[in-house]
């Protein structure tokens, strides 16, 4: 426990003073400023003339404004933050020959990897809290709407999901830094993984669904079941991407008007009926119930990857050379 905190403290100091971190933080800082400004001014124009707008505050995070929303930005580039924080965690210690020195001190070997992971998660948390506060603060002055307790609750849940999402990629990159001795190899492997799971699965799920349940324009009318099969296959496959899990989860949490993660096609008649009948926003708890599987899966894969890194690291032979 104590060894872990010492390692974590050292890692934090390293991160905060590294050029890499300063660059990363500057980029994210600029982007959140731009997002907040863009969305804030856009919202002000839209809300002009509305008598009593509701749940405006969260629109700061979900509205795409002119380019993209914060949610989309984190979904795309959050993984990169995780990868940047972890891709050289273990193999750098190996190449500077400090690893054998550290583990010959009276600490458990897992303290090294736990401390590094904890430091990464701390940095991620600091970063995300800073971004959310920044956007909130700017948004407050730009649109002049104060968030209610429910909106704050939604933001906190959003924050927690985002921390797990980025930590997942931190875990993946730490795993690669254990598996590959070469720092460049582990960075490239992590980036390749990110591209595959974030972009290729989204495209690939459509193609795979075409193969599992092929549809053509002529047979749709005769065989509507096929269309549903196709849609289900695509849906299931796309959920293999952590980015889909994250985007669906957080948009539902931050947008109370979203009452389902399904497409219209896959809804039952009753669900469609209730959607058109009830126009009010969902309460917070119901939004959470809706995407609970998403949140749990995201937490589970984060833990799974950390557990794999943990086991691989503990089993590795450590030589001085």
């Amino acid at each position, binding site marked *: 426990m*104590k*060894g872990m905190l*010492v*390692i974590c*403290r*050292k890692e934090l100091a390293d991160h905060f003073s590294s050029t890499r971190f300063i660059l990363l933080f500057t980029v994210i800082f600029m982007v959140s400023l731009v997002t907040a400004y863009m969305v804030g001014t856009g919202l002000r124009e839209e809300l002009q003339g509305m008598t009593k707008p509701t749940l405006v505050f969260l629109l700061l995070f979900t509205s795409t404004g002119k380019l993209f929303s914060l949610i989309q930005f984190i979904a795309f580039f959050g993984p990169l933050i995780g990868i940047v924080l972890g891709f050289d965690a273990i193999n750098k210690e190996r190449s*500077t*020959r*400090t*690893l*054998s*020195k*550290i*583990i*010959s*001190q*009276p*600490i*458990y070997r897992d303290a090294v990897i736990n401390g590094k992971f904890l430091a990464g998660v701390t940095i991620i948390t600091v970063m995300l809290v800073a971004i959310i506060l920044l956007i909130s603060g700017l948004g407050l002055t730009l649109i002049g709407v104060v968030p209610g307790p429910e909106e704050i609750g939604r933001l906190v849940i959003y924050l927690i999901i985002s921390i797990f999402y980025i930590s997942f990629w931190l875990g993946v990159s730490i795993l690669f830094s254990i598996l590959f001795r070469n720092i460049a190899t582990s960075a490239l492997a992590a980036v390749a993984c990110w591209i595959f799971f974030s972009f290729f699965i989204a495209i690939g799920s459509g193609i795979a669904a075409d193969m599992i349940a092929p549809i053509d324009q002529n047979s749709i009318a005769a065989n509507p079941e096929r269309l549903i099969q196709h849609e289900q296959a695509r849906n299931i496959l796309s959920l293999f991407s952590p980015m889909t899990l994250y985007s669906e989860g957080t948009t539902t949490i931050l947008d109370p008007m979203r009452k389902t993660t399904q497409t219209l096609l896959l809804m039952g008649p009753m669900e469609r009926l209730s959607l058109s009948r009830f126009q009010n926003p969902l309460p917070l708890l119901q939004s959470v119930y809706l995407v609970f599987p998403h949140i749990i899966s995201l937490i589970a894969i984060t833990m799974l990857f950390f557990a794999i890194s943990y086991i691989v690291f503990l089993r590795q*032979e*450590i*030589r*001085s*050379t």
Partner: protein
Amino acid sequence: MDGQHIIDCRELTKIYGTQTAVDHLNLTINQGEIFGFLGPNGAGKTTTLLMLIGLSEPSSGSATVCGFNPTREPLKVKRVVGYLPENVGFYDDLNASQNMHFVSRLNGIPEDIALPRITELLSIVELETEKDKKVGNFSRGMRQRLGIAEVLVKEPQVVFLDEPTLGLDPDGTARMLSLISSLSREKNITVFFSSHLLDQVQKISHRVGIMLKGGLVACGKIDDLAKEKFGVDQEIHTLEGIYMKFFKEGSK
């Protein structure tokens, strides 16, 4: 532990895949002595060291270091044993005393005890004027001396030094060797070190062990080994002569 033997290996064996790195090694080291560990590259010296400090698990056999089993109680062993790896690494962007503070924190030494101890150790290894310089700018000799200081932060009973004089200039080697012998003399620390510089080992070691192909082919005082190999009447015997004789016999 029977009071005398601070390190005791019994049938210690390490097998990597099909290759036997250390083959049924039996070795005892007495409290406070300097033990020179010799042998050609790849003879299994480093593997033996790693097993003795609990970084590597023996395939069979067992060892006792300061009364503890390094496989089952690695933390207890690491608390009393210092290890200087071959080509020790440092955090190059930290300075000498920051590097030492990090190691002392890993050992759980309170800051108020650590600070004077680190200052003292840096002056023993003659680095007190360089303590605020980044280790990245250190020369090889300075790095090795800093490595020794780091090992001593935890006030160990035994130190394992793997090739402490590798790549040092003659002056650096001499300073390193006098440092090692003063550890045993002044602090009663048992020193277990491996080296290729036979004449240097001869100067400071109380006993030597020669390792060949994973086994210990000779172990004892240099004079005794010389008598065994060259006979009593041999006047001049160097460790080099003994080593080469064992080496040639072992390679047959």
